[in-house]
């Protein structure tokens, strides 16, 4: 791992400069010169209509995809030159997806250990211990030995949330994490995400359609047709 990626925050934690992305068919320009800076510990919600480019942007911010143009900086260092984006994702980023994507053959406890194969925790015993602590954090200890098929959707998302924390990331990326949940479970998962972010000082970047979720963010970034059209703080908007 590049040492500069581990160092203390100097300026934004994550910064996108002039990001462009066109899909291979060349017809759709999903992102057009998008700039965004995210500070350490900030909770940013990205919203916008379907097809506006927010998921594409999240994938690029999460180093899952490379931009056609523009650069992404993590703690001031460009990721374009990084030798392994796999290692960067494994150590620095936690992902929470709308459809949970737990491995069906593994128990909840085992699912949490899957990212740890590429993480900093060496001994297997320590990994199991860490996974148990994370299950406890999301209130799922009693379901540790259960496979995903025996968990409710809300429980699955809580296990997926615990999995995203397996390697102690500094940045949590969540793509519609409450999109498949009923309102009670959605609130529960959102409360958990916000509480964990506050307790651990995590930076949280979330794509969402939900105004209720956006209201709880530090900043809401609105996108339209591959552009960022506005950025505002819900707290300040409420005061005004």
């Amino acid at each position, binding site marked *: 791992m590049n040492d500069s990626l581990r160092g203390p925050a100097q300026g934004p934690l994550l910064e996108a400069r002039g990001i462009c992305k066109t899909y291979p068919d060349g017809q759709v320009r999903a992102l057009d010169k998008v700039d965004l800076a995210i500070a350490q510990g900030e909770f940013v919600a990205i919203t916008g209509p379907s097809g506006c480019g927010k998921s594409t942007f999240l994938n690029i911010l999460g180093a899952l995809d490379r931009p056609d143009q523009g650069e992404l900086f993590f703690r001031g260092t460009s990721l374009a030159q990084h030798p392994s984006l796999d290692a960067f994702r494994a150590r620095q980023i936690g992902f929470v997806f709308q459809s949970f994507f737990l*491995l069906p*053959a*593994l128990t909840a406890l085992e699912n949490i250990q899957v990212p740890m194969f*590429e993480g900093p925790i060496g001994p297997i015993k320590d990994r199991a211990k860490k996974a148990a602590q994370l299950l406890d954090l999301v209130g799922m200890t009693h379901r540790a030995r259960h496979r995903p098929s025996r968990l409710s959707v809300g429980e699955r998302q809580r296990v997926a949330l615990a999995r995203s924390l397996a390697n102690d990331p500094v940045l949590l990326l969540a793509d519609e994490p409450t999109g498949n949940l009923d309102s009670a479970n959605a609130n529960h998962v959102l409360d958990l995400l916000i509480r964990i972010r506050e307790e651990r000082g995590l930076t949280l970047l979330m794509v969402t359609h939900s105004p209720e979720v956006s209201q709880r963010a530090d900043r809401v970034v609105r996108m339209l047709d591959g552009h960022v059209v506005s950025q505002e703080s819900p707290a300040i908007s409420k005061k005004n």
Partner: protein
Amino acid sequence: MHFATLIFKNVFARPSRSVLTILGLGVAIGTMIALLGISQNFDTSITETFEKRGFDLVVVPGGMVDQLSGKIDESIIEQVRQIPKVSWVEPALLEVIDMEQRDRKPGESTAPVMTVLMQAWPPANFDRAVSQTPKDLDLTDGRVLNADDTGRGRLMLGSTLAANLGKKPGDKVILLGKPFEIVGLFKSFNVFETGSVLMLLSDAQADLDSKGKITGFSVSLQKGSDPEMEVEAVRQAILELKGKDGRQVRLSAEPPRKYIENASHLKLTRAMAWMVSSIAIVIGVISMLNTMIMSVMERTREIGILRAIGWPKRRIIAMVLGEASILGLLGALVGALGAIAVTYLLTFSPRVNGFIEAGIPLSAIGLGLAISFFIGLAGGVYPAIAAARLLPTEAIRHE
């Protein structure tokens, strides 16, 4: 959780498909192990036939594709006995012949026939076979053929063959269309001999229209200070022998192990075993490829997630190859156990129990395990690479 635990759980997450793949592979590997095992047993058994009897050279007609079908003039034996260092020469006439399986029923012109191996020796060979230590032949019932039996239609049966036919000394069997009296039963360290017929050479020559002919002979040498050199010297002397017409006799003379390596009918057996095994291996690879491609395709989103959370391509490849290898090794285990069971059961079948030895050599099982592991890897490589190449963003969107 160990990485191996994850691989095992993935394999058995779809138990029906995994079990069917293991069974399919088991059949392929079992076929290979059984065929190669039988072929190896065959080679070993024939090698032992010569080596345990202390033969240093095996001489058969030279320049022939099927050495068993060639004949040598028996008169040459005397010349061989005169070669320095030669201590014993054992001529033999070998033939695969038809024997009636049971007594004829009233009105029957012939009973159903079976194919048996017939060996014919001169009387001196019989005396030596039962008198030396350890015994070549272990007489289990009756007596040994001797010179007085010449021309009287008598023979000996291997105990396995006798048991299959339900015969004992004093009974008759019909061989080459003629009745023969059984004078004794024997066991040999060689499974093929225990399932064979022994006759006097002169009787067999008469019945097979091969008067004065033999199919080969074996030679023992006096033990000297440089056995290899002495064997080579005698071998050269045999190759230079001339027949009654003064022309050089075309012979092949080789030490037993080399004879086994080169014998055309044994080569054919090995080639057949390998040919069928190769087909089984190809089927195994295709089956594995099919299973692993299906497995990777079904798990496209899972693999996308693993890539997203930071698994590098090499770990994805290791996971898929690990799954394929486990299937391969379990297939080999099933195949090896199946091959051992089938060859053991075959020894109870009268049709083949004179030709098949129970048990599979460890080398054949080892080879089966290695090839099955290779099948696993070969069948897993393409799906593993395909899985590793999946782009996380596209794989996650895959429906």
